[in-house]
């Protein structure tokens, strides 16, 4: 299984490197007084990274019939699914950690920091669950059919992003700024992070079952 | 007429045709002046090429078993039965030679073989 993770992480990294360079460039721009709040951009970036590296990796497997190759080798479906889920988890943790680190660097006021950490973490959970459901979809319907739905998910993510963070992007809009700040203060969200983790494990189990019974090899 | 083309037979296809037509002439299935089926017909029935049959007919004609009239087809020559028998004996002789030589190593000689043949005839 670790072998699988190692080989596939190369595919993930391939996508991470150019985006990382991209990020540094933009981050400098924002840090020097850009208008768009950094964390909104960071969230978007996190999503792009997770979804992009997942898609790159899977399109590579699809192009090379990677699952057919694995079908011959002594490796179980459970190990295949585990390697994917660990990779997503690793990427999300890396990106979220980096995000929060950058936010702490950038933000001076402690109230804002609390909210930003919340948004950073919850966004990580969103990315994690997005990755999980993508894999379930790929195992169930195959990569090609799943990519057709990509834009659909992209749209959902965009709506979520605007709903929660719209006020920070467009300060005049006032959608639910107060509610978000209140929610951040209430600390209920702290439970949402482990809850997301539990849901992720549950989705992992579903993914294993789907992989074991699906015909998309 | 009974013709079997066998791909397991090492003899070339045209020769298999020639041999079996000669057999038919020898055993009286085909009589003098009988018309042979056309080349196309033979090729079609036996699922072999017309060129093969053409070659077989040419050989038969050259060896004097059949003759061809333009536009009418090929016919059996009124061939001397003794001559046919002589031809058959010639083939038989070479077959017998193989039997004789291949059995020498077992200590079987011509006398043994002649005795066997006589026994077979009596048992008939």
């Amino acid at each position, binding site marked *: 299984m670790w*072998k699988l993770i190692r*080989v596939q992480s190369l595919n993930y990294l391939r996508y991470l490197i150019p985006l990382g360079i991209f990020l540094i460039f933009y981050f400098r721009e924002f840090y020097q007084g850009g208008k768009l709040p950094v964390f909104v951009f960071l969230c978007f970036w996190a999503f792009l990274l997770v979804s992009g590296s997942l898609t790159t990796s899977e399109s590579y497997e699809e*192009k*090379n*019939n*990677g699952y*057919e*190759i694995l*079908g*011959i*080798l*002594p*490796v*179980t479906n459970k190990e295949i699914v585990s390697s994917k889920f660990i990779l997503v988890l690793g990427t999300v943790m890396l990106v979220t950690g980096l995000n929060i680190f950058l936010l702490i660097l950038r933000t001076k006021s402690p109230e804002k920091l609390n909210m930003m950490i919340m948004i950073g973490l919850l966004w990580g959970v969103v990315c994690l669950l997005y990755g999980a459901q993508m894999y379930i979809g790929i195992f169930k319907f195959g990569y090609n059919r799943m990519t057709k739905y990509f834009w659909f998910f992209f749209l959902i993510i965009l709506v979520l992003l605007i709903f929660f963070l719209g006020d920070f992007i467009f300060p005049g809009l006032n959608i639910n700024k107060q509610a978000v700040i209140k929610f951040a203060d209430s600390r209920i969200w702290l439970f949402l992070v482990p809850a997301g983790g539990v849901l992720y494990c549950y989705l992992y189990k579903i993914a294993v079952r789907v992989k*074991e*019974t699906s*015909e998309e*090899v | *007429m*009974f*013709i*079997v083309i*066998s791909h*397991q037979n090492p003899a070339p296809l045209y020769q298999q045709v020639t041999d079996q037509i000669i*057999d038919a002439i020898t055993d009286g299935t085909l009589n003098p002046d009988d018309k042979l*089926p056309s080349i196309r*017909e*033979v090729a079609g*029935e*036996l699922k072999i090429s017309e060129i093969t049959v053409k070659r077989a007919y040419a050989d038969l004609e050259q060896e004097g078993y059949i003759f061809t009239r333009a536009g009418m087809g090929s016919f059996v020559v009124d061939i001397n039965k003794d001559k046919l028998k002589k031809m058959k004996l010639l083939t038989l002789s070479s077959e017998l030679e193989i039997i004789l030589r291949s059995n020498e190593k077992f200590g079987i000689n011509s006398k043994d073989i002649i005795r066997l043949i006589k026994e077979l005839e009596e048992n008939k």
Partner: protein
Amino acid sequence: MKYILEANNLRKEYQGFTLDNISIKLVRGTITGLIGPNGAGKTTTIKLIMNMIKKNSGDISIFGLNYKNDEKEMKNRIGYVGEEQYFYQNKTIKWTEKFVSGFYNNWDSDIFSAFIEKFQLPANKKIKNFSKGMKVKLSFAVALSHNPELLILDEPTSGLDPIIRREILDLLLELKQKEELSVFVSSHITDDLFRISDHISYMVNGKIIISEVKDELLARWKKINYKPDSLPEGIEKKLMNVEKQLFGSSGITDKYQEMAGSLITGIKQGDIKVENVGLDDILISLVNGE
């Protein structure tokens, strides 16, 4: 344990095709050929045996193990070459060996190198530039380098030129000398199976119709050429694929030993001529008989 592979009542339903409760028993140390026309279900059968697709019902036991509990161990002891050879396209043989070998407990790098050398495959060329024949050879090298006990081959020679085909067949014949290796091979190229198999199974329309030792099969099946009316009573009715022609009739029988006695007079008189049949003649009779 006599059988290295036992599959019982395997069933797989697709839209418009059903693999219908087939059973397969593979005797240890033998080569079993699975013959059938395209679309008969050969690849489906093999993919079921490899656990690449899921069965609707039935059970598969290989080395006395089953996929539910021991998939890893089983795959460690199976070598597989498919109809299509999948490799990471822009990688080299060197990389591929490194990748594949990590999964096996008992990968033998020396065997692999020996095959690569024997097949004259370029170690540092990208696989996407390989010909079909080279990919098949690489597949065999991969399938044989972990000392498998069971080799499963799905149409390994289809799409190959006669020279490479012969090379592959010679390799299989060579492997056959090693008695510990068992092979299950599917093909629609009957000549290939004729050369290498000990045991033959015929598959038509998702069913296994015949499964028999090759020599017995060929002793049983004969083509009978006969002069019209020269056959003893009732024999003609028992023949399959009867063709009546100007120059005699012919038919195929699968019970030659039973009727040989009654044909002997005709054979002596030259009115009946018996020929061996090829595996494809049998296949055609079976398909027509369906």
